[in-house]
Protein backbone atom coordinates (compact mmCIF):
# COMPACT_ATOMS: atom_id res chain seq x y z
CA UNK A 1 0.00 0.00 0.00
CA UNK A 2 1.36 3.40 -0.87
CA UNK A 3 -0.12 6.83 -1.14
CA UNK A 4 1.31 10.24 -1.67
CA UNK A 5 -0.51 11.46 1.39
CA UNK A 6 1.42 9.05 3.61
CA UNK A 7 4.59 10.85 2.60
CA UNK A 8 3.35 13.97 4.32
CA UNK A 9 3.82 12.45 7.78
CA UNK A 10 5.67 14.79 10.07
CA UNK A 11 8.49 12.30 10.49
CA UNK A 12 9.05 12.08 6.73
CA UNK A 13 11.73 14.75 7.00
CA UNK A 14 13.64 12.65 9.54
CA UNK A 15 13.73 9.82 7.06
CA UNK A 16 15.66 11.87 4.54
CA UNK A 17 18.52 12.67 6.90
CA UNK A 18 21.46 10.87 5.37
CA UNK A 19 23.84 8.87 7.41
CA UNK A 20 26.24 6.09 6.67
CA UNK A 21 24.25 3.47 8.58
CA UNK A 22 21.09 4.24 6.64
CA UNK A 23 22.90 4.20 3.34
CA UNK A 24 24.54 0.85 4.07
CA UNK A 25 21.26 -0.70 5.19
CA UNK A 26 19.55 0.69 2.09
CA UNK A 27 22.15 -0.78 -0.27
CA UNK A 28 21.94 -4.11 1.57
CA UNK A 29 18.19 -4.22 0.96
CA UNK A 30 18.74 -3.44 -2.74
CA UNK A 31 21.41 -6.14 -3.00
CA UNK A 32 19.00 -8.62 -1.42
CA UNK A 33 16.46 -7.78 -4.16
CA UNK A 34 14.04 -6.20 -1.67
CA UNK A 35 11.66 -3.59 -3.09
CA UNK A 36 11.90 -0.04 -1.78
CA UNK A 37 8.50 1.44 -0.90
CA UNK A 38 7.52 5.14 -0.70
CA UNK A 39 7.78 5.50 3.05
CA UNK A 40 11.12 3.70 3.35
CA UNK A 41 14.28 5.64 3.95
CA UNK A 42 16.14 6.28 0.69
CA UNK A 43 19.15 8.41 -0.29
CA UNK A 44 18.15 11.81 -1.65
CA UNK A 45 19.98 11.03 -4.90
CA UNK A 46 17.96 7.81 -5.38
CA UNK A 47 14.74 9.76 -4.92
CA UNK A 48 15.88 12.48 -7.31
CA UNK A 49 16.99 10.00 -9.97
CA UNK A 50 13.66 8.20 -9.79
CA UNK A 51 11.57 11.37 -9.94
CA UNK A 52 13.55 12.44 -13.00
CA UNK A 53 13.35 9.06 -14.73
CA UNK A 54 9.71 8.23 -13.92
CA UNK A 55 8.45 11.71 -14.81
CA UNK A 56 10.41 11.69 -18.10
CA UNK A 57 8.88 8.32 -18.80
CA UNK A 58 5.41 9.74 -18.04
CA UNK A 59 5.99 12.79 -20.25
CA UNK A 60 7.10 10.45 -23.06
CA UNK A 61 3.82 8.53 -22.86
CA UNK A 62 1.81 11.75 -22.96
CA UNK A 63 3.78 13.43 -25.77
CA UNK A 64 3.86 10.05 -27.54
CA UNK A 65 0.12 10.36 -28.15
CA UNK A 66 0.74 13.24 -30.57
CA UNK A 67 2.55 11.57 -33.52
CA UNK A 68 0.03 8.72 -33.58
CA UNK A 69 -3.00 10.86 -32.83
CA UNK A 70 -2.11 12.59 -36.09
CA UNK A 71 -3.38 9.53 -38.01
CA UNK A 72 -6.53 8.54 -36.10
CA UNK A 73 -8.92 10.36 -38.45
CA UNK A 74 -7.05 9.05 -41.50
CA UNK A 75 -6.68 5.38 -40.53
CA UNK A 76 -7.37 3.29 -43.66
CA UNK A 77 -10.05 1.05 -42.12
CA UNK A 78 -12.29 0.78 -39.07
CA UNK A 79 -10.12 -2.09 -37.76
CA UNK A 80 -7.02 0.09 -37.95
CA UNK A 81 -8.83 3.05 -36.46
CA UNK A 82 -10.13 1.28 -33.35
CA UNK A 83 -6.69 -0.27 -32.78
CA UNK A 84 -4.97 3.10 -33.05
CA UNK A 85 -7.53 4.73 -30.77
CA UNK A 86 -7.07 2.00 -28.16
CA UNK A 87 -3.29 2.36 -28.39
CA UNK A 88 -3.36 6.13 -27.93
CA UNK A 89 -5.75 5.73 -24.97
CA UNK A 90 -3.34 3.20 -23.46
CA UNK A 91 -0.49 5.67 -23.78
CA UNK A 92 -2.52 8.27 -21.91
CA UNK A 93 -3.26 5.72 -19.20
CA UNK A 94 0.40 4.70 -19.00
CA UNK A 95 1.41 8.32 -18.56
CA UNK A 96 -1.04 8.59 -15.67
CA UNK A 97 0.17 5.39 -13.95
CA UNK A 98 3.70 6.76 -14.18
CA UNK A 99 2.84 10.22 -12.86
CA UNK A 100 1.16 8.50 -9.89
CA UNK A 101 4.34 6.44 -9.28
CA UNK A 102 6.49 9.61 -9.40
CA UNK A 103 4.12 11.30 -6.96
CA UNK A 104 4.74 8.61 -4.35
CA UNK A 105 8.24 10.10 -4.12
CA UNK A 106 6.83 13.44 -3.00
CA UNK A 107 6.68 15.29 -6.33
CA UNK A 108 3.35 16.91 -7.18
CA UNK A 109 1.54 16.27 -10.45
CA UNK A 110 1.28 19.99 -11.11
CA UNK A 111 5.03 20.54 -10.69
CA UNK A 112 5.87 17.64 -12.97
CA UNK A 113 3.49 18.72 -15.71
CA UNK A 114 4.60 22.34 -15.45
CA UNK A 115 8.27 21.33 -15.83
CA UNK A 116 7.38 19.50 -19.04
CA UNK A 117 5.31 22.38 -20.41
CA UNK A 118 8.10 24.84 -19.56
CA UNK A 119 10.50 22.71 -21.59
CA UNK A 120 12.61 21.99 -18.48
CA UNK A 121 11.83 18.26 -18.30
CA UNK A 122 12.78 15.91 -21.11
CA UNK A 123 10.76 13.26 -22.88
CA UNK A 124 11.90 10.58 -25.31
CA UNK A 125 13.64 12.10 -28.33
CA UNK A 126 11.75 9.78 -30.69
CA UNK A 127 8.50 11.73 -30.40
CA UNK A 128 10.11 14.77 -31.99
CA UNK A 129 9.99 13.08 -35.40
CA UNK A 130 6.97 13.54 -37.70
CA UNK A 131 4.55 10.81 -38.87
CA UNK A 132 4.46 11.58 -42.60
CA UNK A 133 2.63 8.52 -43.96
CA UNK A 134 0.39 5.72 -42.70
CA UNK A 135 3.40 3.37 -42.77
CA UNK A 136 4.90 5.46 -39.96
CA UNK A 137 2.12 4.19 -37.71
CA UNK A 138 3.20 0.65 -38.55
CA UNK A 139 6.86 1.41 -37.86
CA UNK A 140 6.05 3.15 -34.58
CA UNK A 141 4.16 0.13 -33.27
CA UNK A 142 6.74 -2.35 -34.53
CA UNK A 143 9.96 -0.50 -33.68
CA UNK A 144 9.24 2.39 -31.30
CA UNK A 145 7.02 0.25 -29.08
CA UNK A 146 9.37 -2.68 -29.62
CA UNK A 147 12.26 -0.59 -28.30
CA UNK A 148 10.12 0.73 -25.44
CA UNK A 149 9.15 -2.83 -24.43
CA UNK A 150 12.84 -3.86 -24.53
CA UNK A 151 13.54 -1.02 -22.09
CA UNK A 152 10.48 -1.60 -19.92
CA UNK A 153 10.65 -5.34 -19.31
CA UNK A 154 13.74 -5.08 -17.06
CA UNK A 155 12.06 -2.14 -15.29
CA UNK A 156 9.37 -4.55 -14.04
CA UNK A 157 12.12 -5.74 -11.65
CA UNK A 158 13.34 -2.26 -10.74
CA UNK A 159 14.12 -1.72 -7.06
CA UNK A 160 11.41 0.92 -6.54
CA UNK A 161 8.10 -0.87 -5.87
CA UNK A 162 5.57 1.60 -7.32
CA UNK A 163 7.61 2.01 -10.54
CA UNK A 164 8.06 -1.75 -10.96
CA UNK A 165 4.33 -2.36 -10.42
CA UNK A 166 3.37 0.36 -12.92
CA UNK A 167 5.73 -1.22 -15.45
CA UNK A 168 4.17 -4.66 -15.04
CA UNK A 169 0.79 -3.19 -15.89
CA UNK A 170 2.19 -1.18 -18.80
CA UNK A 171 4.05 -4.16 -20.30
CA UNK A 172 0.96 -6.34 -20.08
CA UNK A 173 -1.15 -3.77 -21.90
CA UNK A 174 1.51 -2.90 -24.44
CA UNK A 175 1.95 -6.32 -25.91
CA UNK A 176 -0.71 -5.59 -28.51
CA UNK A 177 0.93 -2.32 -29.56
CA UNK A 178 3.89 -3.96 -31.20
CA UNK A 179 1.78 -6.69 -32.79
CA UNK A 180 -0.64 -4.24 -34.38
CA UNK A 181 2.33 -2.29 -35.78
CA UNK A 182 3.87 -5.39 -37.30
CA UNK A 183 0.51 -6.37 -38.76
CA UNK A 184 0.32 -2.97 -40.49
CA UNK A 185 3.83 -3.49 -41.89
CA UNK A 186 3.02 -7.00 -43.07
CA UNK A 187 -0.12 -5.81 -44.83
CA UNK A 188 1.77 -3.00 -46.58
CA UNK A 189 4.63 -5.30 -47.58
CA UNK A 190 2.22 -7.83 -49.10
CA UNK A 191 0.38 -5.04 -50.93
CA UNK A 192 1.19 -3.05 -54.06
CA UNK A 193 4.71 -1.92 -54.98
CA UNK A 194 3.78 1.58 -53.86
CA UNK A 195 2.65 0.30 -50.45
CA UNK A 196 5.84 -1.67 -49.99
CA UNK A 197 7.90 1.37 -50.99
CA UNK A 198 6.01 3.41 -48.39
CA UNK A 199 6.87 0.81 -45.73
CA UNK A 200 10.55 0.88 -46.72
CA UNK A 201 10.59 4.69 -46.68
CA UNK A 202 9.13 4.74 -43.15
CA UNK A 203 11.72 2.21 -41.96
CA UNK A 204 14.49 4.29 -43.54
CA UNK A 205 13.39 7.41 -41.66
CA UNK A 206 12.76 5.76 -38.28
CA UNK A 207 15.55 3.21 -37.98
CA UNK A 208 18.32 5.44 -36.67
CA UNK A 209 16.15 7.55 -34.34
CA UNK A 210 14.81 4.27 -32.86
CA UNK A 211 18.35 3.05 -32.12
CA UNK A 212 18.96 6.37 -30.36
CA UNK A 213 15.98 5.67 -28.03
CA UNK A 214 18.26 3.46 -25.91
CA UNK A 215 20.32 6.51 -25.02
CA UNK A 216 23.98 7.41 -25.40
CA UNK A 217 26.63 4.69 -25.69
CA UNK A 218 27.73 3.17 -22.38
CA UNK A 219 30.99 5.08 -22.14
CA UNK A 220 29.09 8.40 -22.46
CA UNK A 221 26.03 7.70 -20.27
CA UNK A 222 25.84 10.00 -17.26
CA UNK A 223 23.23 8.13 -15.21
CA UNK A 224 24.39 4.55 -15.68
CA UNK A 225 26.58 3.72 -12.71
CA UNK A 226 24.44 4.82 -9.77
CA UNK A 227 21.27 3.49 -11.43
CA UNK A 228 22.92 0.12 -11.91
CA UNK A 229 24.08 0.00 -8.30
CA UNK A 230 20.54 0.87 -7.17
CA UNK A 231 19.03 -1.74 -9.51
CA UNK A 232 16.92 0.82 -11.28
CA UNK A 233 18.77 -0.14 -14.42
CA UNK A 234 19.45 -3.83 -15.05
CA UNK A 235 21.05 -3.65 -18.51
CA UNK A 236 23.26 -1.00 -20.08
CA UNK A 237 22.10 1.14 -23.02
CA UNK A 238 24.33 -0.74 -25.44
CA UNK A 239 23.21 -4.15 -24.17
CA UNK A 240 19.55 -3.27 -24.69
CA UNK A 241 20.27 -1.75 -28.09
CA UNK A 242 22.04 -4.94 -29.16
CA UNK A 243 19.15 -7.12 -27.97
CA UNK A 244 16.76 -4.95 -29.92
CA UNK A 245 18.80 -5.08 -33.13
CA UNK A 246 19.17 -8.86 -32.87
CA UNK A 247 15.41 -9.25 -32.42
CA UNK A 248 14.50 -6.81 -35.19
CA UNK A 249 16.71 -7.74 -38.12
CA UNK A 250 15.00 -11.12 -38.75
CA UNK A 251 11.59 -9.40 -38.47
CA UNK A 252 12.65 -6.93 -41.19
CA UNK A 253 13.93 -9.79 -43.34
CA UNK A 254 10.58 -11.56 -43.03
CA UNK A 255 8.89 -8.38 -44.26
CA UNK A 256 11.34 -8.21 -47.18
CA UNK A 257 12.54 -4.79 -46.05
CA UNK A 258 16.16 -3.73 -45.79
CA UNK A 259 17.67 -2.06 -42.74
CA UNK A 260 19.08 1.29 -43.89
CA UNK A 261 22.55 0.55 -42.56
CA UNK A 262 25.16 -0.41 -45.18
CA UNK A 263 27.65 -1.06 -42.36
CA UNK A 264 25.54 -3.74 -40.66
CA UNK A 265 27.23 -7.11 -40.33
CA UNK A 266 26.52 -10.38 -38.55
CA UNK A 267 29.34 -11.62 -36.31
CA UNK A 268 30.33 -15.25 -35.66
CA UNK A 269 28.04 -15.44 -32.63
CA UNK A 270 25.09 -14.41 -34.75
CA UNK A 271 24.76 -10.87 -33.38
CA UNK A 272 23.84 -8.16 -35.84
CA UNK A 273 26.32 -5.28 -35.41
CA UNK A 274 25.00 -1.90 -36.53
CA UNK A 275 27.09 0.88 -38.06
CA UNK A 276 28.02 4.12 -36.33
CA UNK A 277 25.12 6.15 -34.88
CA UNK A 278 25.10 9.88 -35.59
CA UNK A 279 25.03 11.12 -32.01
CA UNK A 280 25.16 14.75 -33.10
CA UNK A 281 21.58 14.33 -34.38
CA UNK A 282 20.54 12.89 -31.00
CA UNK A 283 22.08 15.87 -29.19
CA UNK A 284 20.36 18.32 -31.51
CA UNK A 285 16.95 16.70 -30.90
CA UNK A 286 17.51 16.65 -27.12
CA UNK A 287 18.55 20.31 -27.27
CA UNK A 288 15.15 21.15 -28.76
CA UNK A 289 16.13 21.29 -32.41
CA UNK A 290 14.51 18.12 -33.75
CA UNK A 291 11.95 18.32 -36.56
CA UNK A 292 8.92 18.58 -34.25
CA UNK A 293 10.11 19.75 -30.81
CA UNK A 294 8.35 23.10 -31.02
CA UNK A 295 5.15 21.58 -32.42
CA UNK A 296 4.98 18.97 -29.67
CA UNK A 297 5.41 21.44 -26.84
CA UNK A 298 3.00 23.91 -28.45
CA UNK A 299 0.38 21.14 -28.76
CA UNK A 300 0.80 20.10 -25.11
CA UNK A 301 0.61 23.71 -23.91
CA UNK A 302 -2.50 24.36 -25.97
CA UNK A 303 -4.17 21.22 -24.59
CA UNK A 304 -3.23 22.25 -21.05
CA UNK A 305 -4.51 25.82 -21.51
CA UNK A 306 -7.69 24.71 -23.30
CA UNK A 307 -8.41 22.37 -20.41
CA UNK A 308 -7.92 24.99 -17.71
CA UNK A 309 -11.63 25.85 -17.53
CA UNK A 310 -12.51 22.18 -16.96
CA UNK A 311 -10.12 21.92 -14.02
CA UNK A 312 -11.40 25.21 -12.60
CA UNK A 313 -15.05 24.23 -13.04
CA UNK A 314 -14.50 20.84 -11.40
CA UNK A 315 -12.74 22.44 -8.43
CA UNK A 316 -15.47 25.10 -8.08
CA UNK A 317 -18.21 22.44 -8.25
CA UNK A 318 -16.48 20.31 -5.59
CA UNK A 319 -16.12 23.40 -3.40
CA UNK A 320 -19.81 24.33 -3.83
CA UNK A 321 -20.95 20.82 -2.91
CA UNK A 322 -18.75 20.85 0.16
CA UNK A 323 -20.31 24.13 1.33
CA UNK A 324 -23.83 22.82 0.70
CA UNK A 325 -23.17 19.66 2.64
CA UNK A 326 -21.67 21.64 5.49
CA UNK A 327 -24.71 23.96 5.49
CA UNK A 328 -27.14 21.02 5.47
CA UNK A 329 -25.27 19.36 8.30
CA UNK A 330 -25.49 22.57 10.33
CA UNK A 331 -29.30 22.84 9.92
Amino acid at each position, binding site marked *: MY*TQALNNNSDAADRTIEDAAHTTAFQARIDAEARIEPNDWMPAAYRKTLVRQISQHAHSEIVGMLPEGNWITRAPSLRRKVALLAKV*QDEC*GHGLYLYAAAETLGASREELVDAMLAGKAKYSSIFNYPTLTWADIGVIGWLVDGAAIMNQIPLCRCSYGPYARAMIRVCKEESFHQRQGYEIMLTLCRGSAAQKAMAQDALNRWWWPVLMMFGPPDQASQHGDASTKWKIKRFSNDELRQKFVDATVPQAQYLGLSIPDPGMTQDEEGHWRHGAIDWSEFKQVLAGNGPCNRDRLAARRKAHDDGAWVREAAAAYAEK*RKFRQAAQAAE
Partner: protein
Amino acid sequence: MATPNTPLWEVFIRSRNGLAHRHCGSLHASDATMALQAARDIYTRRGEGLSIWVVPSGAITASDPAEKGMMFEPAESKIYRHPTFYEVPEEVGHM
Protein backbone atom coordinates in the same frame (compact mmCIF):
# COMPACT_ATOMS: atom_id res chain seq x y z
CA MET B 1 -4.22 32.84 -7.39
CA ALA B 2 -2.42 29.49 -7.58
CA THR B 3 -4.73 26.60 -8.36
CA PRO B 4 -4.93 24.26 -5.38
CA ASN B 5 -3.64 20.77 -6.12
CA THR B 6 -6.40 18.43 -7.21
CA PRO B 7 -7.12 15.89 -4.44
CA LEU B 8 -5.52 12.44 -4.62
CA TRP B 9 -7.61 9.24 -4.48
CA GLU B 10 -6.61 5.60 -4.05
CA VAL B 11 -8.33 3.16 -6.38
CA PHE B 12 -9.43 -0.37 -5.42
CA ILE B 13 -10.91 -2.78 -7.94
CA ARG B 14 -12.84 -6.01 -7.48
CA SER B 15 -11.77 -8.02 -10.49
CA ARG B 16 -14.09 -11.00 -10.14
CA ASN B 17 -17.13 -11.99 -8.16
CA GLY B 18 -16.07 -13.29 -4.78
CA LEU B 19 -12.65 -11.59 -4.75
CA ALA B 20 -11.80 -8.67 -2.51
CA HIS B 21 -11.26 -5.15 -3.80
CA ARG B 22 -7.58 -4.77 -4.45
CA HIS B 23 -5.49 -1.61 -4.52
CA CYS B 24 -4.40 -0.88 -8.08
CA GLY B 25 -3.19 2.71 -8.10
CA SER B 26 -4.09 6.32 -7.51
CA LEU B 27 -5.38 9.32 -9.43
CA HIS B 28 -6.33 12.96 -9.03
CA ALA B 29 -9.94 14.19 -9.18
CA SER B 30 -11.91 17.10 -7.79
CA ASP B 31 -14.64 14.99 -6.21
CA ALA B 32 -15.74 11.40 -5.60
CA THR B 33 -17.96 11.16 -8.69
CA MET B 34 -15.20 12.31 -11.00
CA ALA B 35 -12.70 10.07 -9.20
CA LEU B 36 -14.94 7.06 -9.90
CA GLN B 37 -15.27 7.93 -13.58
CA ALA B 38 -11.53 8.58 -13.93
CA ALA B 39 -10.79 5.27 -12.18
CA ARG B 40 -12.98 3.48 -14.72
CA ASP B 41 -11.18 5.18 -17.62
CA ILE B 42 -7.64 4.74 -16.29
CA TYR B 43 -7.72 1.35 -14.58
CA THR B 44 -10.41 -0.71 -16.33
CA ARG B 45 -9.88 -0.12 -20.05
CA ARG B 46 -9.99 -3.88 -20.63
CA GLY B 47 -12.90 -4.66 -18.35
CA GLU B 48 -10.71 -5.56 -15.38
CA GLY B 49 -13.38 -4.82 -12.83
CA LEU B 50 -16.84 -5.54 -11.47
CA SER B 51 -16.73 -2.69 -9.01
CA ILE B 52 -14.49 0.17 -7.99
CA TRP B 53 -13.80 1.89 -4.69
CA VAL B 54 -12.16 5.28 -4.53
CA VAL B 55 -10.87 6.55 -1.18
CA PRO B 56 -9.31 9.95 -0.45
CA SER B 57 -5.60 9.19 0.04
CA GLY B 58 -5.45 11.38 3.11
CA ALA B 59 -8.14 9.24 4.78
CA ILE B 60 -5.87 6.20 4.94
CA THR B 61 -4.04 5.58 8.17
CA ALA B 62 -1.13 3.22 7.70
CA SER B 63 1.22 1.42 10.02
CA ASP B 64 4.89 2.25 9.70
CA PRO B 65 6.82 -0.62 8.05
CA ALA B 66 9.92 0.51 9.97
CA GLU B 67 8.09 -0.44 13.15
CA LYS B 68 6.76 -3.73 11.92
CA GLY B 69 8.75 -5.55 14.59
CA MET B 70 6.86 -3.93 17.44
CA MET B 71 3.59 -3.84 15.54
CA PHE B 72 3.46 -7.55 14.78
CA GLU B 73 5.39 -8.87 17.77
CA PRO B 74 2.29 -10.15 19.59
CA ALA B 75 1.72 -12.77 16.86
CA GLU B 76 5.37 -13.85 16.71
CA SER B 77 5.30 -15.80 19.95
CA LYS B 78 2.00 -17.57 19.35
CA ILE B 79 3.12 -20.55 17.39
CA TYR B 80 0.18 -22.50 18.85
CA ARG B 81 -2.03 -20.67 16.37
CA HIS B 82 -0.56 -22.79 13.56
CA PRO B 83 -1.70 -26.34 12.82
CA THR B 84 1.90 -27.61 12.71
CA PHE B 85 2.19 -26.90 16.47
CA TYR B 86 0.09 -29.97 17.19
CA GLU B 87 1.33 -33.49 16.86
CA VAL B 88 -0.89 -36.09 15.31
CA PRO B 89 0.47 -39.66 14.94
CA GLU B 90 1.21 -40.63 11.37
CA GLU B 91 -1.13 -43.65 11.60
CA VAL B 92 -4.04 -41.25 12.04
CA GLY B 93 -3.44 -39.87 8.54
CA HIS B 94 -3.79 -36.41 7.14
CA MET B 95 -5.77 -34.03 9.32
